[in-house]
C-alpha cells in the first residue's frame, strides 16, 4: 500500500465527509489522483461503506445491545465459517468475531428491546444446528465506540488569543 493510499484511508476513517478536493489540498496532490484512488479502493472493497456514528440516546431512541458468546461445533472442510455465515447474515447481528479462548463467536446483537433480543437468541440463534451454547450479556452503557468517546467533556479550554 502506497503512502498516499494510507493517508487517504487515515483521513476518511476519521472523517468520511471529506471531499476529494479537500483531500487533494491536504495531501498536496492532484484531485483526479485522489478520485481515482478512492474509486479503486471502493471497487476493490477496501473501503466497504461510509456510515454515520449516532448517539441514539440523544434522540430518545435507545437501542438495546447485547454481547452473545456462542460455542459452535466446527465442521469438516469449512471449520467455523459455514455456521458463522448462517449467523452473521441475520440483520440483528451488528458485528461478529471468531475468538480464541473459552467460546468461539462473539456476537453483538442490536434490537429495540430486551424481549426482541431474547426472542432472536432463543428462536433463531440457539436453534441453528452446530450451535452448542449461548450466553447473553446486555450492554448497560457505551462509553466509547469505534475510537469515539460518546460523552466527551474535554472541550477546548485554551485562551482565545495567545502569543
Amino acid at each position: 500500500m502506497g503512502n498516499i493510499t494510507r493517508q487517504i484511508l487515515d483521513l476518511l476513517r476519521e472523517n468520511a465527509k471529506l471531499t476529494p478536493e479537500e483531500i487533494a489540498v491536504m495531501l498536496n496532490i492532484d484531485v483526479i489522483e485522489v478520485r481515482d484512488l478512492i474509486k479503486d479502493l471502493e471497487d476493490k472493497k477496501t473501503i466497504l461503506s461510509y456510515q454515520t456514528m449516532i448517539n441514539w440516546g440523544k434522540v430518545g431512541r435507545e437501542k438495546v445491545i447485547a454481547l452473545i458468546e456462542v460455542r459452535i461445533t466446527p465442521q469438516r472442510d469449512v471449520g467455523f465459517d459455514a455456521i458463522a455465515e448462517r449467523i452473521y447474515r441475520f440483520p440483528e447481528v451488528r458485528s461478529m468475531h471468531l475468538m480464541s479462548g473459552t467460546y468461539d463467536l462473539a456476537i453483538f446483537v442490536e434490537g429495540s428491546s430486551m424481549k426482541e433480543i431474547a426472542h432472536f437468541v432463543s428462536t433463531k440463534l440457539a436453534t441453528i444446528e452446530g450451535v452448542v451454547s449461548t450466553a447473553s450479556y446486555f450492554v448497560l452503557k457505551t462509553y466509547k465506540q469505534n475510537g469515539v468517546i460518546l460523552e466527551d467533556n474535554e472541550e477546548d479550554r485554551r485562551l482565545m488569543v495567545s502569543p
Partner: protein
Amino acid sequence: MTQINWSDKVNPVVRNLPPSGIRRFFDLVSEMKGVISLGVGEPDFVTPWHIREACIYSLEKGYTMYTSNWGLLELREAVAADVEGTYNIKYNPRDEILITVGVSEAMDLAMRVLLEPGDEVLIPEPSYVSYAPCTTLAGGVPVFIPTGMENGFRISAEQVQSLITPRTKVLLLCYPNNPTGAVMDREELLKIAEVAKQNDLMVVSDEIYDRLTYVGQHTCMASLPGMRDRTVLLNGFSKAYAMTGWRVGYAAGHPDIIGAMTKIHQYTMLCTSITAQMAAMEALKNGQPAMRHMVENYNRRRNLVVQAFRDMGLPCYEPGGAFYAFPQISATGLNCEEFAEELLKQEQVALVPGNAFGPSGEGFVRVSYAASLDDLSEAFRRIGRFVRRYGVRPKIISTPVQMANGQSA
C-alpha cells in the same frame, strides 16, 4: 500629605517595557460571543492521554518533592539521547543540560547569563513577543533583523554581518518561526554560523517548533561545525507533545554557560515542577507515535490554509514549519490591526495582527491552524466573505475547495 505615585516605585526599565501587542486584542475578543479563534499560539490537541496518565501515576506514587536544580537526571539523560538521536549532537546530561520552566525561562536565563549592560542582541523580526523584553530586562539592547515575504521571512548571513557592531554579543535564532512559519535552510545557516564564529557571537537558538517542520529537514544550529559550544540550544515539550501548560523546557550547551544559567535557576526557580518533569519523561519515552500523528495533521491543515488564502486572493507564502500561516492582507486596504479588529467585529473570527510580532509584520496577520477542521472551514468562509467586502477578488479556480460542511471556502 502628598499623594504617592506608586508607579514611580516601579523600576523604569520595567515601567517603560511596552505591553504585549496582543493584550488589547485579547481584551476585545474576550467580550465577544461565537468567536472562532485562529489566534491561539498553542496546539489544539490536549496532551496525549498516556502522558497525562503517567503524571497521575507519579502523583499516586508520591513524586511530589523537589528535584535536583538541574532537573531529574533521568529526564536529562532522555533529553540528551533524544537530541543525539535527532541531530547527532552529544551533550553530557550531568552538566550540559538544564531542565527549565519552559523555553521562556530558559530564554530569560540565557540572556541574563550572556549580557552585560549595553550588549546588543540581534533578533529576527517578526518573531515571538518575549525576545526583546528578555533582552531589555537583562540590560541588553535588541537590534532587529527585519524579514519579509520576498525572502520567505528568512534572515541572511549578509544581513547579520551588516548589523554587527563592537557591542554585538548574541545572535538570537527562532526557526521554525512564530508567527511566520518560516524555516531556515542549512546552507544559509552554515554561512550565518561562519559570521557568528568570525565575530565571536554567541547564538541563542529557540528551536521549540523543530519537530513541526514540514518542508525539508530542520537543521539544529548546534549541530553545525564549531557551533556546539557557541550555541545555547533551547527546546521543550510544549509544541511537539502538546504540553504547553506543563511548562517544561530545557537548555543545552557548554557547561560554563549552562552552569551559570543553573546558578540563577537554583536561586530564582529552584527546580521545574517534578510532576511536569515526570510527564516530560513519559513524552520522550513513548510519545513518538502521538507526535507523528499530530504533525501529520498540522501538515494537512497547513496545505488547506495556504490554499484557502490564495483562493481568496490574499498572497500567502508557504510556511515550512510551526502551525501558523502569515497571509498578506494589504489588498483589503486595511492595516493589520484594522483588519483583525474589523474581522472580529464583522465576522467573529479572531487572529493576531502581524505587527504584534514586530514592525515587519505590518500588512500581515498570523493565522494559527492549530484548530479543528470544522473551525478552519467555517473561519475561511467568514474571512472570504469579509475580504470580498473590501474588494478583494477571489482567484478563479477550477476546483473550488469544498469544505466538509458543504460550503465553499
